[in-house]
Each structure stands twice: as structure tokens, then as C-alpha cells.
């Protein structure tokens, strides 16, 4: 993505921040801003994996359901063994396995990505509800909870995770052959294949990474909520995809960046946080997120047409 584009998007974040600061006294308080960063980091963790998939002209609709199952399994393991490390490993591995299965469905079995991951969504949804049977697993050790709700040097712990993933992901997409190949596949799969890029194995990689990021997000989310229920992943899918689109990653693949997704996650969180501060009910959230998804997709199309014309 061109730097100027990112500039416009950052401008949008600034404008909405100024509006919120004018409308609500609570907005500019340090605790609220840190809270915004904490929320944005969760959305970013999920959205960064989706960004890679969309860059390669794929789609992953299963991330929300992935988070739910991974979090519930991680919660079970922590409760059973008392080991935080084992719980984290469980959440991450569950996410990775789901991502890998998505990859196999898309590459080896050649299912359209949106329908393969949409089917996966409902398979995971069913398994999670069956497994939890209406139960809630709650109350985890404080050291685990610190992952989601703790602070280090005055900054929420998830923010460090977000920055770590941003730097690692940025280096990966920008400076490695793998990263360049992902862009190439998204820009034109056929050309990429003919140029000798191992398309299937790279696609497997991006779906697995998306699953891994969902696994990581599930651990952080679990630590923050301090409880696991079957439905915890449901409100996450739409915001994550919205963040990717607002961040300027094109739905048609090949164009976009993780830094854009970070800006998208910030923008979306500011909007949702602002609604919260202005005491607009949570019932409005799907409506607003839906409008943002459609608007962002439309902007992508217009920009694309202008680029071609």
C-alpha cells in the first residue's frame, strides 16, 4: 500500500479521536486510551492472520469459531492440569490445527475458500456448544490473567503482543521471499503458479498462520475475560474482517499491509469505544460494524477502479 493511503487512514483515526474527545470527557483519560489499545490489540491479533489470507486472495470466516473452541479447550486444560503453559500450548495448537485443516480443504480439496471456512465455522460452532453443554469455565490463576488484563511498564500486556506480531509480520511480509510470494499469489494466482511459486504450500501456510493467530487471540481473550463460554467467539469475526478492509487490504488480494490492519483495528475500536462512552447500547454494534464493512469494501472497489482507469 502507498504511504499516502495509510496517511489518509491515520487521518481518519485522528479525526474520530478529536470528535470523541470533544463529545466525551472520559475519552482522553489515560485509562480509557489504554483500554482502547487493549481492545484494538485483540482485534489486531485476529485480523493480522486474516490479512495474510486476504492478501493471498483467500478468506477465513472461521476465526471467531476458532477462538471459541481454542479458548474453551485451553480453559479446560488449565483447570485440569493447573499448568498455564500447557493451557497456552493447547489454545495455540487447536488454532493451528484448525487453520491447517482449512488450508487442506482449500488447497488439496480445492473448495472455494469462503465456503470451506464457512462450513468450518459451523462445524466448530457445533463442536464447541456440544463440548461446553452450556457450562462456563471461569476463574483462572492471576499469572495467566495478566496476559490479557495485566500491565507492564504501564502498558497493557496484549499491546506488547500486538507490537511483536506487527514487527514480526511486517518483516515477514515485506522482507522475506515467502511474504513476496503471498502478495504474488494474491495479485494473480495463475501467474504466480507459472512463475514457479509453490502456491498450494504457501496457501497452506497462510491459513495455518491465520489459525495460529486465532489460537493466540483465544488465549489473550480468555485471560482478559477470565471465563470461557461457547459463544465468546461470535462477536469477533465481523470486526476482524472489518479491520482488515478498513486498513486498505484489498478483498481481491495482492494489495495491503499489516500496518494498515493496525490502523483499521484502531479505527474500529475507537468507533466502538466511542459508542460505549456515549452510552449507545451494545445492540448497535452489529449494525455499525456492518455499515463499516460495506463502506470499506466499497472504498476498496472505487480505489481499484480508479487505479485501473
Amino acid at each position, binding site marked *: 500500500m502507498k504511504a499516502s493511503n495509510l496517511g489518509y487512514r491515520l487521518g481518519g483515526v485522528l479525526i474520530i479521536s478529536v470528535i470523541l474527545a470533544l463529545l466525551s470527557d472520559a475519552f482522553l483519560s489515560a485509562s480509557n486510551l489504554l483500554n482502547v489499545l487493549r481492545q484494538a490489540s485483540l482485534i489486531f491479533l485476529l485480523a493480522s492472520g486474516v490479512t495474510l489470507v486476504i492478501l493471498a486472495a483467500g*478468506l477465513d*470466516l472461521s476465526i471467531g469459531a476458532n477462538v471459541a473452541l481454542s479458548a474453551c479447550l485451553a480453559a479446560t486444560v488449565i483447570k485440569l492440569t493447573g499448568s498455564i503453559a500447557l493451557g497456552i500450548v493447547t489454545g495455540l495448537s487447536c488454532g493451528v490445527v484448525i487453520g491447517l485443516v482449512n488450508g487442506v*480443504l482449500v488447497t488439496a*480439496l*480445492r*473448495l*472455494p475458500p*469462503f*465456503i*470451506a471456512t*464457512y*462450513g*468450518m*465455522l*459451523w*462445524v*466448530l*460452532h*457445533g*463442536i*464447541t*456448544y*456440544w463440548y461446553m*453443554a452450556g457450562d462456563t469455565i471461569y476463574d483462572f490463576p492471576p499469572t495467566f490473567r495478566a496476559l490479557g488484563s495485566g500491565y507492564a511498564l504501564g502498558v497493557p500486556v496484549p499491546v506488547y503482543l500486538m507490537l511483536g506480531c506487527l514487527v514480526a509480520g511486517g518483516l515477514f511480509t515485506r522482507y522475506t521471499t515467502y511474504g513476496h510470494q503471498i502478495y504474488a499469489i494474491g495479485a494473480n494466482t495463475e501467474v504466480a503458479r507459472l512463475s514457479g511459486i509453490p502456491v498450494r504450500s504457501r496457501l497452506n501456510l497462510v491459513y495455518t498462520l491465520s489459525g495460529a493467530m486465532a489460537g493466540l487471540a483465544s488465549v489473550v481473550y480468555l485471560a482478559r475475560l477470565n471465563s470461557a463460554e*461457547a459463544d465468546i467467539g461470535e462477536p469477533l469475526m*465481523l470486526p476482524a*474482517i472489518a479491520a482488515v*478492509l478498513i486498513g486498505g487490504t484489498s*478483498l*481481491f488480494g495482492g494489495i495491503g499491509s499489516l500496518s494498515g490492519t493496525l490502523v483499521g483495528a484502531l479505527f474500529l475500536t475507537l468507533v466502538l469505544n466511542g459508542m460505549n462512552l456515549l452510552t449507545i*447500547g451494545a*445492540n*448497535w*454494534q*452489529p*449494525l*455499525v*460494524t*456492518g*455499515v463499516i*464493512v*460495506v463502506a470499506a*469494501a*466499497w472504498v476498496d*472497489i472505487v480505489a481499484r477502479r480508479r487505479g485501473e482507469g
Partner: protein
Amino acid sequence: MSAAREKRLPTPFLPGVAYLLAGLLVTFSVLAPGFASVPNLLNVGVQSSILLLLALPMTLIIMSEGLDLSMGAMLGLAGVTLATLLVDGTSLVFAAGAALAVGLLFGMANGWLIVSLGIPPFVATLGTLGIAQGLALVATDGQSVVGIGEQLPDLYASRWIGLPFSILVALVAYGVFHLLLYHTRFGTYVFAIGGHREALDLAGVRANLYHVAIYGVGGVMAGFAALVFTGRMNAGHPTAALGMEFDAIAAVIVGGTSFSRGDGWLPGTVLGVLAVGVLKNGLNVIAISSSLQVASIGLLVIAALLIDSLRGRR
């Protein structure tokens, strides 16, 4: 890719879904004694009828290489509109008209976003899913709308020529869609939009108009399904129908309609709806939790797509 893959196979082919349905029927008859009784099979029909109302337009949408993820949410919003008007004492006809209008509006909006703006269908309808769901939640504050009077529940409970109302509605809807798809110009264009879009444009047909209309029909049918659903629930609920679009998509895919080349078969969709209905009901009878039923339908879709792909039809 290969020449064989490109070759068009004739539709209708001998559908795998027929074997699947027969297999499910036999399996559950053996496993569950209560399954193969007339009241239970009638129950499957009643349960499947609302699904068919959604799966019929979904067939046209998928044939046009599209998708509508917003149908369950549209049904919810139309149902809430209907129930709210009925609670206010509006006549059933007016309230029903309003529900259909809500569906039509959202369906046309889907079509406009997808056809005129060029937004990929799954993203556009994911957005309108959020919008419709949000509107329904905001309008009802997340609560069920109860006290809709006797008229609609009575209509739902009525029997016509020995058949439950909802089955009769489903049969009529099938008849209308069959005529529409196979015996009108609109139907021919539906096949062509997924298969030979260029040819339509070259022939001077306003393909975009018909393409938008396909999604409009989807919205209207979601509104129509809301009438039956609200009658059955005796209330309007903002989120009860969420996810129903997945059953509809599953039924269409299992029924042999393909995501590409305008390859669709309406009787296959009926079989697909019945397969989904039988699977859910049968798992219910042998006491498998409803959550695993959802998962099993997910697996059913993936399996159907696999078979489709192995046959080299995609």
C-alpha cells in the same frame, strides 16, 4: 484446468443427494424405532418447509455465482417488523406486506451492493447481515416481541386439504419457483448470468437488472419465511433465525447446485432440504444434541463439495 474439467456435463445428472437421502432414511429407520412413523415424517416436512422457502431463492443466488449470508438476519428483521405491527393492532395483511417490503428492500440492497458496486457477495451480505441483525436488536432491545394475537398462529396451525399450512406453502413456493426458473425468460437469464454473462450482455439483455432481481427475490422469500416462522414461534424474535442461511446454503450445495457455471437443479434443492431435515430430525430422535447436528451439517456440506469436486464437476 484440464479440458475434461472445462467440459459442461448435462444437468440434471443423477444426483448423489438422492442416494444420500435414501441412505439417511434407511439408517434412521433402523437406528430409531420412532423415526419412520407418519407423524414424525410429517414433522420433518413441517420443519423443512421454512428451510425450503429460503433454499429456493438461495439456489438461484448460488447459480448466479453469488451467496447470501444475510437471509437469517433478514428473516429476523422481517419477523420483528411483522410481530411489532401485529402487537400494535395492525391488520395481518398490512403487517405481512410490511414484512415482505423489509425483505425486498434488503434483498435489493444486497443486489445493488453486489451487482452495481461490485462488492464480492460474501462480504456484501456479511455486512448486511450485521445491519439487519443490528436493526432487529435495536428495534426490540434484544427481546422477543410477544402478544401477536391469534390470527397468524391460527393460520399456521390450520390444515388445508389434509396438509399442514407450512407444507402447503412450501409446495406452492416450489411450484412458483419451478415455473419461474424453467418456464420464464427470467429463469433462462438466471442460468445465463452464472454461465454466460457475456452472451447476455451481447444480446442486449439488461443482465444487471435481472441479477439484482435475483437478490430481491431472496429478500422477499426471507420476508415470506418470516410469516411462517413468526406463526410457528407465536412471537417475533430478533436473533432466533440467525444461522438459518447456513442450512439453506447446505441444502442447495448438497442438492447438487454448483458455485460456478450457472449449474443448478431445483428438484435437487428439495432433496437437499429434505436431507438436512431428515439428518436433523434423525439425530434428534437418537438423542444427539442440537449442537452436534449443526456440526454434522457442516461436515455434510464439506462432504458434498468433495464429492462434487472428485467428480470433476467444478
